[in-house]
């Protein structure tokens, strides 16, 4: 029997992690992730959860503690945001290259300066090339479900990479809605215990972890890491399907196409802003515009083949970025989408940026975006000039 709860995103994440039975959790509080940490402490205090919680003095130590626990053979979980992610970047890069299947939820928040605590995935996107799998989600149910799936993906023998589940600060972390909470038994069935053999610190079978390594070896490990990312594309889909079968909720793997079958004008989105984009697509359809949407779920590994396939032969494409790429004058996702479709016939593409620092990306703005895309498609306009989506409602 399914249990339903009305919880916010942080609580959903905590429930997902709780059900995954991590051995060790170490996290440092930071707005808007803090309540997640508190839920854990409370679970353990109440004896609901049998994890070891460690309270570090910083995020750098949080990730380092998990590195140790994971190396010793444990399943580990943490969560952070923005400055916290930045502070732990040194061990963050390292755990992926050590192939440790740590799961970390990132509650996306702007990077300072300006001093801000509000939402925006600039934090994790800027660090997308550190070797982690990064999956972006849209609502609380997806947070919960993907936090569970994350462990299964991470620990898969063909993957063995750490995974981030990224969700928008406040928009999801502090949004309350109903979610279905799977039964512990079923989750345990779905997600068997972690038993590492590829790297482990244990006096019973001594090994050196990370000896000094000359380049000819290093290259080999890098190649394997890249292969594991490729495998992860398959595994993410497999785990998605298995989950869908067992729990009845399907997220379509690396990307989710929405009304794409006959779509001519396409928006590409990431994270919670997808919601208002869906509404805008529906509105456009009502007006007879063949709009469609691609929600990118896995940014790393990048769904190159899927994007190419889905964007082939469209009339125009817009990418909505809640982040910037400073040296490109567009958003980061736009820059990558352009790369992905480089070998296709050139199609007008429009970079949108907006919603930074916790600004809303309203349905109206999304409809504007679709209008721009339609216009670009009709004029075959190749401009690549970023259009800012600016919310002036309620000011």
């Amino acid at each position, binding site marked *: 029997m399914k249990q339903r709860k009305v919880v916010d995103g942080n609580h959903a994440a905590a429930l997902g992690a709780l059900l995954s039975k991590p051995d060790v959790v170490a996290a440092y509080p930071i707005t808007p992730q803090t309540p997640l940490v508190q839920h854990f402490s409370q679970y353990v205090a109440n004896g609901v959860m049998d994890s070891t919680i460690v309270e570090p003095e910083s995020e750098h130590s949080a990730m380092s503690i998990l590195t140790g626990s994971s190396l010793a053979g444990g399943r580990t979980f943490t969560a952070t945001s923005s400055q916290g992610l930045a502070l732990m970047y040194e061990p963050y890069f390292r755990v992926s290259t050590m192939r440790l299947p740590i799961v970390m939820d990132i509650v996306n928040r702007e990077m300072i300066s300006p001093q801000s605590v509000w939402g925006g995935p600039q934090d994790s996107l800027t660090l997308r090339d550190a070797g982690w799998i990064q999956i972006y989600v849209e609502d609380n149910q997806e947070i919960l479900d993907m936090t569970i799936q994350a462990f299964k993906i991470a620990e898969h023998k063909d993957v063995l990479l750490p995974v981030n589940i990224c969700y928008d600060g406040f928009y999801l972390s502090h949004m309350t809605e109903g979610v279905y909470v799977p039964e512990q038994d079923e989750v345990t069935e779905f997600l068997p215990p972690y038993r590492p053999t590829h790297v482990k610190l244990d006096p019973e079978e001594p090994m*050196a972890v990370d000896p000094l390594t000359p380049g000819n070896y*290093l290259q080999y490990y890098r190649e394997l890491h890249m292969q594991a990312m490729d495998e992860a594309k398959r595994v993410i889909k497999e785990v998605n399907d298995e989950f869908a079968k067992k729990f009845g909720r399907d997220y379509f793997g690396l990307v989710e196409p929405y009304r794409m079958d006959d779509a001519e004008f396409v928006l590409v989105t990431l994270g919670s802003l997808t919601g208002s984009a869906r509404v805008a697509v529906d509105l456009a359809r009502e007006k007879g515009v063949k709009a469609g949407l691609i929600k990118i779920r896995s940014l790393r590994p990048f769904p190159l083949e899927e994007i190419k396939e889905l964007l082939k032969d469209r009339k125009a494409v817009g990418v909505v970025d809640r982040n910037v790429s400073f040296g490109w004058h567009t958003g980061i996702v736009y820059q990558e989408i352009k790369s992905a479709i480089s070998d296709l016939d050139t199609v007008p593409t429009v970079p949108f940026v907006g919603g930074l620092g916790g600004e809303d990306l309203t349905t109206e703005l999304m409809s504007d975006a679709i209008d721009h895309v339609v216009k670009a498609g009709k004029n075959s306009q190749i401009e690549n000039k970023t259009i800012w989506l600016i919310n002036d409602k309620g000011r």
Partner: protein
Amino acid sequence: MKKTDFICAIGKELNIINTGDWKVYPPVIDQEKCKKCGLCLLYCPTNSVKHEDGKYIIHLEFCKGCGVCIHECPANSIEFKKGE
């Protein structure tokens, strides 16, 4: 690209580095003079001094020839054998 059995940087077999050939001269204990205090064993950085059959003996395979044992021996029983 060097292939290994591992998917990340680990090492299992023991690495053996020939530090024995660093030394210019080998240290040798004069068992006559030796008072069996064992300080050479306690102070040798390379773990080259062994206690065998009640005697302290310097194994030369990895001894780098630093001279600490010589300098610290209270009985002046160790010397570099410069003959070779």
